[in-house]
């Protein structure tokens, strides 16, 4: 990796803005601190591609959720704004979309994601050539994503990152996120 590692402090995604009448009330106060406090980001730009490496602490990795409805997997998402004004904290807004990639620790495949606001995320097959390598070592997840032809990031040069800690029952809007868009271009 040619990029310089950057340590980034994360914040808990605000629960008060979660859609529906339950999550915001039931989880009020959970966003005082993130379940995953920080990550290390390295970004490189091989020709026609992006190589993004993340490392974050996760002392109790959850990689297998099969068979138990109470288990959630560790996961991470990286997304980029489709428009200059696309908000990061709500994963976009109507007409101001975001798109990116979702990795789940219980899956062998990446998923492409797109959203135009909270509760609107769509998942699809990842573009051909998008791949990942991962390992859990010394209490940390290390995830390296190779993402050729990600035109949205090519255009914007900015990403935001979300981390879900399965052991804390993170899912949906219960996640740790970067406090703003991050310039990587």
């Amino acid at each position, binding site marked *: 990796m040619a990029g310089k590692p950057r340590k980034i402090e994360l914040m808990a995604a605000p629960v008060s803005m*979660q859609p*529906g009448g*339950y999550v915001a009330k039931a989880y009020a106060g959970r966003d005082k601190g993130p379940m995953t406090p920080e990550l290390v980001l390295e970004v490189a730009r091989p020709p026609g591609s992006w190589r993004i490496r993340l490392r974050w602490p996760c002392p109790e990795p959850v990689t297998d959720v099969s068979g138990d*409805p*109470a288990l959630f997997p560790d996961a991470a998402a990286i997304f980029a704004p489709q428009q200059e004004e696309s908000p990061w904290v709500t994963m976009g807004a109507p007409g101001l979309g975001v798109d990116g990639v979702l990795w789940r620790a219980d899956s062998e495949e990446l998923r492409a994601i797109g959203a135009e606001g909270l509760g*609107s995320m769509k998942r699809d097959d990842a573009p051909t050539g998008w791949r990942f390598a991962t390992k859990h070592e010394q209490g940390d997840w290390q995830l390296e994503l190779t993402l050729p032809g990600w035109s949205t990031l090519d255009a914007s040069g900015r990403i935001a990152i979300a981390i879900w800690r399965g052991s804390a029952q993170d899912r949906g809007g219960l996640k740790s996120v970067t406090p703003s868009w991050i310039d990587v271009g």
Partner: protein
Amino acid sequence: MSETVNGRQVAMVMDLNKCLGCQTCTVACKKLWNRDTGADYVYWNSVETLPGQGYPRRWQETGGRDEAGGVKRGEIPSLEGEYGRAWNFNVKDVVNSNSKQGKTWLRPDGDPKWGPNWDEDRGAGSYPEDNHYFYLPRICNHCTHPACLDACPRSAIDKREEDGIVLVDQDRCHGYRFCVEACPYKKVFFDTERQVANKCIFCMPRVEEGVAPACARQCPGRLRFVGYLDDEEGPIHKLVNVWKVALPLHPEYGLEPNVFYVPPMSPSAMDANGRPTGEPRIPYETLEGLFGPKVREALATVEAERAKRKRGEASELMDLLIAYDWNENFQLGLGGAVGPNEERV
């Protein structure tokens, strides 16, 4: 809370005085809707012994509503702890052992510590003074204000305008399980293979054809009534609104469930000398804890009508509850008619 004003509401009444605990309803539902591997542990219809821990275990304590109807953080039941893993049995070993010395007995794999009906027929109280139990069949209540719908950040749960049936859109569902957590009746489940929520659909394809849900049709005890709440000629309206003997489960949650129960009567408890005390074996407090403050009134009505019938007097309520003509239990047509495709049996 979400506003879900509906055109019509299909509903069910279950007369707990007639439930045998035979689980035919459970099997009918399971066979019809939940045979996938990821739903092994799932019972949209369950029958639990009360007093008891229920299915899933401690469901009355782990939902997303408090006793004042306020939102509280619920729990997602675990497979081993609350639902109970579906057992596999050593059937082949047993069959093969017939020709060998030393019989192999049928037993489940592993060492299960809990499962549906683990505490079946245990109940509470002391023999012979006041021992008691009764069966509580449960399906999704298709609430007027569903906690599951309110909990879904993806709007993947819908309450149908035409009949009030609450459905999960599994194409929209991302498996977050806030619905599982929030439902105070714990009647939303999670398919662990397909990674989406699922729940009782009130046999929607049958209802659309005027046929009652499988759990109701298969019930040997004839304890289930199905119809529309606003059908003044139908059994639901009569039992819930006219006679007021059918009560919702945990009305204090404020969700307005649309499954109602005729609470169970019970014989008198006995004193130390074996004489009846006049107090019911199933304490009013137990029933009020389930069905709210109108239990005594409902039981008094049922008892009074039963007494009338015993005296040889007419009682519309008793005729209805006895279900002389079972077809009358299911009124899914308009104007109190038996559903258009309902077979008369």
